[in-house]
């Protein structure tokens, strides 16, 4: 399964300035307001694996994804693709060629397809943009082939997006992503807007395509069951940082970070074993003013003085990497 790293993310930081306009700041004396969406995140993705980023809304998982594909520039940190720096000032000139091998699938299949374009034009766009094929006839043939590949029919190319259901639109998004002949696909909550029976169809399709085409996935989701099903390794994010990173079996079998444990406890129990899930008090704090020390400490039952002041780093702990003082000190199994 594991190969050499295809994507390496190192100390990635992305801040958003949401300050009031300069005039307001001058008149009202208001300070700058910075959202620390991603605050020092590092991981690497091996060729052929599915790496999942999981967390609640606002934890920065989508920002990481968008920064990797180049939709945001990083504030600091490095992103390497096949060993070449692709983000920031140190990025080389051959970045465009590398980026071509990256595609993205978005959450909302209603918003991510141009309603005025026919499906054949939507799917053919990456081919034309990157001049992958010489003439119109071969583009048309390739589009038809892609539509069949994702479970649609070549005649669907003549239709517009509104003629399709949510699941079919997501198939179109996947066909468009495949048109760029990617090796790395970033999937941002690709099934969150879909009904469960349709979700199963899309997840199965994604797995099958991965096997057939040797794709590498970065999979962003808040749904732990979906993550368990599809990914080989998982990073749990909280307030712009990774608090635990492990392979899927280790993470779900023996979660170590208190936040991971809490997340796993919130999974509804379909087996109805009578387990009463213990709701965690409190909510995710604002990333504008994240708590000092460990960002999770205000909600953590194991927090002590060190957790309130000193930020924990990711450290190996029994097959996983965990950013938690309590785990490191052995206060927590």
């Amino acid at each position, binding site marked *: 399964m594991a190969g050499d790293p295809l994507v390496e993310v190192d100390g990635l930081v992305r801040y958003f300035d949401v300050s009031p306009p300069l005039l307001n700041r001058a008149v009202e004396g208001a300070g700058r307001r910075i959202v620390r969406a991603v605050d020092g995140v590092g991981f690497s993705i091996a060729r052929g694996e599915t790496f999942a980023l999981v967390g*609640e*809304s606002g934890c920065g998982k989508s920002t990481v994804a968008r920064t990797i594909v180049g939709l945001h520039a990083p504030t600091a940190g490095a992103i390497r693709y096949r060993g070449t720096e692709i983000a920031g000032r140190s990025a080389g000139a051959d970045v465009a060629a590398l980026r071509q091998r990256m595609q993205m699938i978005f959450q909302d299949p209603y918003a991510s397809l141009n309603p005025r374009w026919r499906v054949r034009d939507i799917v053919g766009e990456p081919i034309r943009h990157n001049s992958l094929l010489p003439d119109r006839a071969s583009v048309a043939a390739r589009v038809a082939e892609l539509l069949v590949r994702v479970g649609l029919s070549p005649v669907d190319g003549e239709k517009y997006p509104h003629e399709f*259901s*949510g*699941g*079919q639109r997501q198939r179109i998004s996947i066909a468009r992503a495949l048109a760029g002949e990617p090796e790395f696909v970033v999937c941002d909550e690709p099934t969150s807007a879909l*009904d*469960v*029976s*349709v*979700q*199963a*169809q899309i*997840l*199965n399709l994604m*797995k*099958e395509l991965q096997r057939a085409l040797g794709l590498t996935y970065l999979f962003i989701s*808040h749904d*732990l*069951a*979906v993550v*368990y*099903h*599809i990914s080989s390794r998982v990073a749990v994010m909280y307030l712009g940082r990774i608090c635990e990173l492990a392979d899927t079996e280790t993470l*779900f079998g023996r979660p170590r970070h208190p936040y991971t444990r*809490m*997340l*796993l*406890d*919130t*999974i*509804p*129990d*379909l*087996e*109805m074993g009578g387990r009463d*899930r*213990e*709701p*965690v008090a409190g*909510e*995710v704090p604002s990333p504008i003013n994240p708590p000092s020390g460990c960002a999770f400490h205000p909600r953590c039952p194991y927090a002590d003085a060190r957790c309130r002041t000193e930020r924990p780093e990711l450290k190996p702990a029994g097959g996983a990497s965990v950013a938690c003082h309590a785990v490191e000190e052995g206060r927590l199994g």
Partner: protein
Amino acid sequence: MSAPLLEVEDLRVEFPTRRGTLVAVDGVSFSIARGEVLGMVGESGAGKSLTGNAVIGLLEPPGRIAAGTVRLAGERIDGLPHEAIRRIRGRRIGAIFQDPLTSLNPLYTVGEQIVETVLTHLDVGARAARRRALELLGEVGIPAAAERIDHYPHQFSGGMRQRVVIALALCAEPELIIADEPTTALDVSIQAQIIRLLRRLSAERGASVLLITHDMGVIAETADRVAVMYAGRIAEIGPVRDVLKAPLHPYTRGLMDAIPAVGRDVDSLAQIDGAMPRLHEIPAGCAFHPRCPSAVAACGRDRPDLAPSGATEVACWLYRPEPAHGR
């Protein structure tokens, strides 16, 4: 057990269009006992929200109740004049919707909104109304309620806003609460808090709840009974434990198998091929038969009604002798 609080019988909701009448809810019958939580689950377009809206008289025109009855504590409430149903809604039926931001008026503090609702429905003075508002905010678990009562909705987080909406729905101590996807817009950790709150309220106050959701997990944790809807009809209804652990209807079975679960190691998920039919192309007979792996001849011809099978009721020919006439 006394008579059910809510009885819905043969409810049919239609949308007249230029190209003919669309039937969005087709012959739906169910009842909810006092203090019971009935879950209503189904995929988008199955008609679950429309059923809820029909019960509280909130169908958007041109949608209309074309047939059937809705009874609250024995009295018919369908087809009541606008003003009468408005009094029942709020006083006797509380409603909670998916998006807490659109259920609250951004221009008034949450206190003003709750006080106004209390004054509308209960015969109390302004002071008592404010006291009641404070009590309610405390009851739904808003910390520092005395201070938060004067805040505006945008100052609350999503989870806290949903608590305010629940407090609003509870103002007049309604007998029935209709909660339409109350946790869908919330993060998982907040979901658990809201689910627990709903369950506690129904247990403590003896309120009945119609919980509409697409999330089987929420149903499993909250509901006593569950109705599974497909293409505007109830496919299966029964105690949650029976329906989720041993589903009878092929659609419910397919749905349960399609849900990924932590700890379930399968390479590919079971999938129901195709999609739910759109309203103008609902097939004859059982609406599920073109996608059903166990369909027999009768399924494409005759529509199965709900019939008891063990503790549940299921609308499927597999559990009944096929209709007598011809093969």
